[in-house]
């Protein structure tokens, strides 16, 4: 187990190097230039001279090799540099957003798991009954609904419904308050995106839980458990679910990691100042330092979550005997 963990940690290195190379090259292939966008994008008169001053200040006139070397050294020494757009340290830019994104990701995961596990299990045990059909329709609808559309509808629905009820339209706060500062303000903002994201997330997990349960329920050991006269409840909750959880854990892990860097659209809809929005902005602004740092961070989160999932997997499933 110990050796396996070390091995898995070492395996992250090529992934991180690969991701670094990829983002470095991608960013430089995108047409445009942070100085041109920032200074020329407004349509105001901007001289070449001013642009050059800006580029020089950001080190953009250096050779690719030098830029990559600086980037690589920066990554290794955990010195991520300053955002090319705001001039603030990248770590500061990211840490401000991380908290919000993490909270939404956790809340969405909780929402999803709370909905998905019972629904998935019920759907599997009642396979091909109307209950199963309803749950499946509900879950496929979740996958089929564009998340931004759902978000806009939630906001609009709240505005219209609250206006009918209270005479004054209510909207969720559009600026983040940390949960320890004002839990109520925090939750009244984050609960909606968490629901909007959680629905799709739950839908995916319901499907996975259902199919994993169906598969497990067909296994011989479930038949053995039945032949022992165990109660159906025990068979489902202890014998089947524990086995069915394995793929579900993987999925939840991947989805969670995805939420850290992928809440792009939802964050726009709910005006959440999170990593997803920052990410899109950084790419569109050609903010090399910020994009690179973000990619490295999101990829790191992904591989770390994957590692944790695998270790959890090993913990749940004694068959996976890492030695």
């Amino acid at each position: 187990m110990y050796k396996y963990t070390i091995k898995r940690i070492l395996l992250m290195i090529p992934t991180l190097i690969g991701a670094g190379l990829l983002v470095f090259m991608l960013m430089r292939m995108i047409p445009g230039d942070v100085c041109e966008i920032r200074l020329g994008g407004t349509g105001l008169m901007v001289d070449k001279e001013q642009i050059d001053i800006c580029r020089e200040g950001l080190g953009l006139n250096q050779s690719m090799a030098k830029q990559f070397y600086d980037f690589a050294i920066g990554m290794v020494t955990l010195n991520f540099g300053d955002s090319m757009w705001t001039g603030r340290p990248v770590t500061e830019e990211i840490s401000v957003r991380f908290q919000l994104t993490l909270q939404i990701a956790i809340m969405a995961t909780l929402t999803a798991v709370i909905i998905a596990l019972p629904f998935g299990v019920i759907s599997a045990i009642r396979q091909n009954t109307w209950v199963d059909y309803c749950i499946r329709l509900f879950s496929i609808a979740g996958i089929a609904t564009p998340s931004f559309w759902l978000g806009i509808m939630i906001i609009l629905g709240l505005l219209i419904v609250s206006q009918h009820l209270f005479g004054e339209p209510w909207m969720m706060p559009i600026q983040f308050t940390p949960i320890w500062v004002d839990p109520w303000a925090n939750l009244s903002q984050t609960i909606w995106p968490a629901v909007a994201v959680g629905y799709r997330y739950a839908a995916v997990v319901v499907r996975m839980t259902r199919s994993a349960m169906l598969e497990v329920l067909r296994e011989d050991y479930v038949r053995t458990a039945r032949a022992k006269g165990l109660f159906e409840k025990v068979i489902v909750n202890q014998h089947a679910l524990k086995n069915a959880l394995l793929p579900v854990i993987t999925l939840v892990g991947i989805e969670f990691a995805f939420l850290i860097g992928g809440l792009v659209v939802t964050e726009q809809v709910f005006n959440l100042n999170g990593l997803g929005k920052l990410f899109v902005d950084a790419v569109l602004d050609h903010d090399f330092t910020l994009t690179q740092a973000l990619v490295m961070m999101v990829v790191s989160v992904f591989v770390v979550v994957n590692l944790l999932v695998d270790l959890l997997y090993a913990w749940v499933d004694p068959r996976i005997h890492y030695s």
Partner: protein
Amino acid sequence: MSAAEDMVEEDSLAEAEPLLRVEGLKMHFPVTDGLFLKHTVGLVKAVDGVSFTIAPGETLGLVGESGCGKTTVGRCILRLEQPTAGKVIFSGVDIAGMKTSEMSDLRQDVQVIFQDPFSSLNPRMKIGSIISEAMRVHGIIKDATERRERVSELLRICGLNPRFADRYPHEMSGGQRQRVGIARALSVNPKFIVCDEAVSALDVSIQAQIINLLEDLQKQFNFSYLFIAHDLSVVRHLCHRVAVMYLGKIVELADCDELFDNPKHPYTRALLSAVPVPDPEIEAARSHQILEGEVPSPINPPSGCVFHPRCPQAIETCKRDIPELQEFTPGHMLACPVVPRE
């Protein structure tokens, strides 16, 4: 066929130049570790120094329990595995050291029939293409019409209606598929066929059909078979000579009836004793020697004679000395120093 005829046949076989000679065959699978530069931390000695010969027209039975390495021996001969050491001399040529590219011709001389009739045929291909593919690819028969005729003929030889050529494997029963597997092997006109548990997955009534077919084909085409099986009854029925394997080594090798009627090695004896005979009266009369314990792991095999931990006759030296396979009586090879000479 009378027993006397059999004897004559076997005598002549023994003197003939062997078609296949396996010498000191070893197949060690490395247990690797490491990330990018793998290094070996252990060896699974699946096959550890196996030697035997097979004459043209002869069937050698290779028996043993699961994990004893019998299947790996077959795979080495087929060059589905690259043996670690030893020679596999087929028709005078050592194929163990050959490059894959040089193998092409030899591939056609050595064919295989697999155990599982449900997985040994590509489910996406029609029976006709399964059988004709090799003839087409290797240019054995270039003309499509001729090829179709040949497929029909092969199907007929294997006891199948030529109409089956247009069916898919899943439309057939297990026995029929196994016949297709045989027809496929025959399509390249091999001299030697490895039957890897070729009848174990079949029901009794079907099994007998296939056994008879294999026998008939051998008579007709003078194939040699390496008949790998765990079912001793089938082996006894079908093979001229039988080798018993235990944990990567041959422990006993003898003519079929000699081995079954007069087993020497304690393992062979236990094995035979464990096989029930479908006759309650005989069973009631037999003594059942139950072997204790289980086959040890091939990664860390016991010292000395690998069988000694389970051997009822083991003595102190068995823990130390690795017994050689030696001629015990003429034609009867044995790897056990404990068995008293009569």
